[in-house]
């Protein structure tokens, strides 16, 4: 065996067959060249450098793997096995192993290490723009590889062991020893006795497969947001991530030529980070203070020195607070670190705040705000535990649609200029009001959809706020009450207080108006049944603080359709209804006036609440008066009748 090994290293027969060697090296060069200017394969020493030149960037590699048309899960397994995930990058050895595995799978073999020992055709890759014309047939010269395969397994293991020793990896972990690049690693061949290496390989392979599968599961969740090499993609989202991956790469190839794939943030990750940012600090233009960020990042369970280092990297302006791009960079670094990537020496260019800011179109924030609120709100309302976030991040990522990548090079500059002026370093705004309004906004939106009266309400929603005459009101429920009488005196009383809010009503979109309608139903409904239920009075107090002028309108049109079911969802919508009205406005307003708007909203809300309560009060008083009158009338009748009977 040693003679064979000596022969193996002496004359330099390739571990792979000739064609395989050629193709693999070509592929590798293409992948690496696509990223960083193409060093040749076959320098495993240099490939150990994390950011070294001899790595195939994960992007082209991912493309290549996808071109092989294997299912995403298989690709994931392959990358696991080839050690790229563990190592963190695609060195030539990992790349070759991966290609070999792809070939194995395409031949119908399971994704195992033993598959590589068999003779394999070359992997087949469909056309893709990055890979060019790389279609391989089934070469016939595999017989030569048979002889080399025993060397292959042992040598690669020996080679890997030296790697392991240097890296102090646990030997039981995926010792998917990659192929040693033949010309440069002959010295490794002789280091370890072959028989020992072979048995080790055998034992390790048996253990390996349960291990990566189990080991992968807990990693899947934390790795959810990682944009690193394919090995770190969770299975569920691999499809979406692949899509975003390729889409993003197209864009970024257009706009920039950063080769460091692990440090690029995908759109889904970005959205996730932005949501997390908002969970800490509602205003995207403001920043997170140091202590808040510290608590947040400490939950990621990284060591303090590492966190300190990450902070040092990401807080570019050293102001003790993180703006949104800084936060995203920090988050990304944390995620990468958790996935095993070594921290960079300096902030990678893709994580620079300027780059991130440019890639953050401002309208996108708001769109993301709308789209993601219903998903992010449940997570926000839970404890903001990062572990939980990591788990929910997987769900969130699944829920997020792959956003349309509208940012082109030109837009970026324009956006950058607007963003730079829109992200000032001023004092963070009062988080309480926008936060509350944001919290409140989300809830009614999700629930108002369930109310039955939305469609009709939406039709009514376009009515001008001036209350039309309402002779059509009928006394369906409370026969003793003349609702017209009830409402009409109340309207002028409240009208003065209601004039300021109405002009803001029309531009509001339907959902918020539907809420108002559903709330409008409440008071009318409650007023309908005062005689029936005294318990309605506490419900009346919960009457929502919606826009009073809209209430008379809706009430007029909807006398019969009141249902008790709408009461429950409506009551809960109470406070936030007017807060929801502010929701559509952010798209129009600038960041700086958001504060004012929020405060004005709160003021308006309170005013409306006051107005509603005052009107309710007056209405109830009116009802009381009427009830008294009726009672008096009845007593009169009784008196009139009594003497008759008595007599």
């Amino acid at each position, binding site marked *: 065996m040693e003679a064979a090994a000596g022969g193996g290293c002496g004359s330099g027969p390739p571990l792979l067959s000739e064609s395989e060697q050629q193709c693999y090296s070509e592929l590798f060069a293409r992948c690496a060249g696509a990223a960083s200017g193409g060093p040749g394969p076959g320098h495993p020493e240099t490939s150990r450098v994390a950011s070294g030149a001899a790595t195939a960037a994960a992007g082209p590699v991912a493309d290549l793997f996808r071109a092989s048309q294997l299912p995403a899960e298989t690709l994931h397994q392959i990358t696991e096995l080839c050690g790229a995930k563990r190592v963190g990058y695609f060195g030539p050895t990992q790349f070759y192993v991966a290609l070999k595995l792809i070939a194995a799978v395409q031949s119908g073999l399971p994704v195992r290490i033993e598959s590589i020992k068999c003779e394999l055709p070359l992997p087949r890759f469909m056309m893709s723009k990055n890979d060019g014309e790389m279609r391989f047939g089934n070469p016939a010269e595999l017989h030569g590889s048979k002889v080399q395969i025993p060397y292959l397994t042992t040598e690669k293991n020996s080679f890997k062991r030296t790697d392991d020793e240097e890296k102090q990896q646990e030997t039981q972990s995926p010792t998917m020893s990659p192929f040693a690049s033949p010309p440069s690693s002959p010295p490794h061949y002789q280091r370890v006795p072959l028989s020992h290496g072979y048995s080790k390989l055998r034992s390790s392979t048996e253990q390996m497969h349960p291990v990566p599968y189990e080991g992968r599961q807990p990693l899947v969740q934390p790795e959810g947001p990682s944009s690193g090499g394919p090995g770190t993609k969770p299975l569920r989202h691999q499809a979406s991530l692949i899509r975003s991956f390729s889409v993003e790469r197209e864009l970024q190839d257009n706009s920039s030529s950063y080769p460091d794939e692990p440090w690029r943030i995908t759109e889904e990750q970005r959205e996730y980070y932005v949501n997390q940012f908002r969970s800490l600090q509602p205003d995207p233009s403001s920043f997170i203070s140091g*202590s808040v960020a*510290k608590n947040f990042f*400490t939950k990621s369970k990284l060591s*303090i020195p590492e966190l300190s280092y990450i*902070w*040092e990297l990401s807080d570019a302006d050293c102001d*003790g607070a993180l703006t949104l791009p800084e936060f995203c960079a920090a988050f990304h670094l944390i995620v990468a670190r958790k996935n095993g990537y070594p921290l960079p020496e300096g902030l990678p260019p893709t994580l620079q705040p300027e780059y991130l800011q440019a890639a953050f179109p401002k309208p996108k924030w708001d769109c993301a705000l709308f789209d993601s609120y219903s998903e992010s709100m449940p997570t926000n309302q839970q404890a903001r535990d990062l572990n939980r976030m990591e788990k929910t991040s997987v769900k969130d990522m699944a829920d997020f649609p792959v956003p349309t990548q509208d940012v082109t090079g030109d837009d970026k500059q324009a956006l950058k200029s607007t963003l730079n002026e829109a992200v000032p370093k001023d004092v963070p705004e009062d988080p309480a009001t926008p936060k509350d309004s944001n919290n409140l906004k989300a809830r009614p939106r999700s629930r108002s959809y369930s109310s039955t009266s939305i469609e009709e309400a939406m039709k009514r929603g376009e009515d001008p706020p001036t209350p039309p005459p309402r002779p059509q009101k009928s006394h369906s429920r409370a026969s003793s009450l003349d609702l017209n009488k009830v409402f009409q005196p109340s309207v002028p009383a409240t009208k003065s207080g209601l004039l300021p809010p109405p002009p803001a009503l029309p531009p509001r979109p339907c959902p918020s108006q539907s809420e108002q309608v559903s709330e409008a139903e409440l008071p009318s409904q409650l007023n309908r049944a005062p005689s029936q239920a005294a318990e309605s009075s506490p419900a009346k107090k919960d009457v929502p603080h919606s826009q009073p002028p809209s209430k008379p309108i809706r009430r007029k049109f909807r006398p019969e359709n009141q249902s008790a079911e709408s009461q429950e969802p409506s009551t809960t919508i109470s406070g936030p209804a007017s807060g929801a009205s502010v929701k559509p406005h952010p798209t129009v307003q600038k960041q700086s006036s958001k504060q004012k708007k929020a405060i004005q909203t709160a003021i308006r809300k309170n005013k409306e609440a006051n107005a509603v309560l005052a009107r309710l009060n007056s209405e109830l008083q009116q009802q009381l008066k009427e009830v008294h009158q009726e009672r008096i009338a009845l007593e009169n009748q009784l008196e009139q009748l009594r003497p008759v009977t008595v007599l």
Partner: protein
Amino acid sequence: MAVCIMVIVKENYPFYVRSIPVENELKFHSVVHTSLDLVDEKISAMGKALVDQRGLCPGLLYPTEDYKVYGYVTNSKVKFVTLVDSSNTAHRDNEICSMFWKLHNSYTDVTCNPFPNPGDRIRPRVFDNMVTSLMTQVC
């Protein structure tokens, strides 16, 4: 040339020490330590009218035969002390003070990091780099 730079915290223990020549390092440390009370003395002597924009710069604390000791105090009672080689006598107080101001800025940048770094503060490489540059520049 600044031979040694030391940052002393309010509690009067050295938070960060950096010296250029490795030999006699302890001697530098002891010199710096002993000069701490000089700093305090000067501060108390100067009184309260020293709310300089960038901090108190008492300047030269003590000239020994080989070195001169310069001190500087921040608002939060963090002291920077440096030993400067006496061969470079062309240095004026202003230069030293400007050097201290740079140190101070860099120090504040470091303290902005909310993650506690117990004891060891060599991590912030920016600070290190700046210190090194200062030390080589002042020669």
